[in-house]
């Protein structure tokens, strides 16, 4: 029987197909979620730390601790800004928004079925969506971190900076901070993707996580280990003083922090795939 008048081009199978499909998903997701007007609040959020550091670098007036002239002091200010604002606020809320929206956003827009009706394994779909979130969040928040670092170094002048970066601890600091940003996106991204998929109302678990992460410094060492900020915290090059109440746990070695984070991500993707495999399309509920 002649099935189709003009035969559709063959698609192939296996890794090469999946790679192309993931590329297709990335294309669609990035255009839809990150290059559109609806991403504007996220860009504003991501810009806040950079703007603060910029103001700090540009305006000397009334600076309390002389950060412009005293680099050690500036470094402390920056490390506080990095943990308090970039990690705990900007990346936390940014990832919550991006990753919880990956599937929920489609349910709200009533457009998830177009994916489910494409010749794509649902596992591939999960990986593709997660990667799109990761690419967007990493790009955005790496720019935030890099921008903030840029304005941290700016007032020292070119020569001093080159010296500090290439003959001093500067280079290691920069790569560490950028690396931590990536890990934070990986970790929070995985966490929020699961929360978004498994809870009908993800606000409550998300708020719980928020409180848990802020109170992390009070937790006993065992419990500390089940939080993302702990691992990120043990990686920062310039330690942040957690205040007099903090319970000091021993920091986790770098390689454990990184492999741990990757394993968690793998588990999360697996769980998400299980969930998505059994998912039915009912848009009515919201």
């Amino acid at each position, binding site marked *: 029987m002649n099935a189709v008048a003009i035969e559709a081009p063959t698609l192939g199978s296996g890794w090469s197909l999946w790679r192309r499909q993931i590329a297709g998903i990335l294309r669609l997701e990035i255009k839809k979620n990150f290059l559109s007007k609806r991403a504007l609040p996220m860009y504003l959020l991501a810009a806040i730390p950079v703007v603060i550091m910029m103001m700090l670098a540009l305006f000397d007036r*009334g600076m309390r601790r002389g*950060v412009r002239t005293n680099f050690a002091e500036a470094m402390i200010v920056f490390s506080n800004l990095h943990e308090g604002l970039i990690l705990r606020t900007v990346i936390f809320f940014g990832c919550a928004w991006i990753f919880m929206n990956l599937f929920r956003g489609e349910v709200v827009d009533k457009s998830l079925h177009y994916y489910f009706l494409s010749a794509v394994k649902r596992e591939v779909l999960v990986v593709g969506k997660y990667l799109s979130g990761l690419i967007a969040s990493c790009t955005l928040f790496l720019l935030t971190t890099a921008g903030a670092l840029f304005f941290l170094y700016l007032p020292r002048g070119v020569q001093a900076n080159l010296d500090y970066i290439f003959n001093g601890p500067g280079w290691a600091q920069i790569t560490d901070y950028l690396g931590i940003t990536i890990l934070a996106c990986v970790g929070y991204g995985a966490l929020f993707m699961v929360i978004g998929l498994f809870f009908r109302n993800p*606000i409550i678990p998300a708020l719980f996580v928020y409180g848990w992460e802020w109170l992390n410094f009070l937790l006993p060492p065992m419990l500390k280990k089940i939080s993302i900020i702990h691992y990120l915290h043990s990686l920062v090059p310039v330690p942040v003083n957690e205040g007099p109440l903090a319970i000091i746990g021993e920091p986790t070695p770098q390689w454990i922090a990184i492999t741990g984070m990757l394993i968690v991500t793998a588990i999360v993707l697996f769980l998400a795939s299980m969930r998505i495999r059994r998912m039915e399309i009912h848009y009515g509920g919201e």
Partner: protein
Amino acid sequence: MAVYQHTYQHYAGVTTPLWSRFLILPRYAFQGVFQSKLFTGLFAICFAPLLVMTILIYFKHNTTALAAFGLSVSDIGFNINGFFFRVFTNIQTGFGFLLTVIVGPVLISRDLSNNALPLYLCRPLTRTDYVIGKMSVIGFLLSLITWVPLLLLFFFEAYLEGASWWWENLFIARAVLVVSWAHIILLALLATALSAWLKWRIAASGALFAVFTIPTPISIMVNEMFSTNLGTLIHPSFVLNLLMDKLFRLESGMLPDWMVPPTWSLWASLIVLALICVGLLSLKVRAYEVVK
């Protein structure tokens, strides 16, 4: 068709006056809102602090009742004053925030995601009516747990204390009114504006929380780094609390003195936030959108 055969007649009876037309929205909203057991439960809990307040005021003035427990007035370690009312106003507005988080986000989100706005706006109901109707849902609910009972308790206390207390403490009544209404208007505007922009109601709840959590580290950091007090102004929760202190004539305990901006700037920041919300609403509450 011959004229005498026309049997159709359009409605010629009385209609409700235009100014009160918006009340239809809260009326239906309340039906839905109180169907949720969770919400009804929470709403009932909101009255618990008021009950405690009533009991405290009552015992403070009733020596015989106290004697029944073997206590005398001097044993009671508190006074009914500005601080007393400030604490309870704070609790009640806190509850008000929670109620808003639960009720607010559905207000416009649902209509948007079901394309219901054209249905509302094709009736004799203007955009302003619509928004005011939606805001009044929060207005009524929050009034019931904030200024209405708090003022009643103020009168109760004044009645027990006598005229001189009344005249000396009239500022408390004013503070209760102003603080409650500032909260009500701000929360109602924020809730409607956010729910108009976020179709997913849960995201709208989250955003409402975010408006009150994200600015905390930012404003403290800005203040610390630039040794300024302008950072405080970007945080609506700081601003409301500082205003509350001012109106109840208390020292501010929450932030160090140098972080407290002048009162007029506190008001100005609230007004700016409110205007932003109004702007967001007027952009989004429309029967249709032109797509380019």
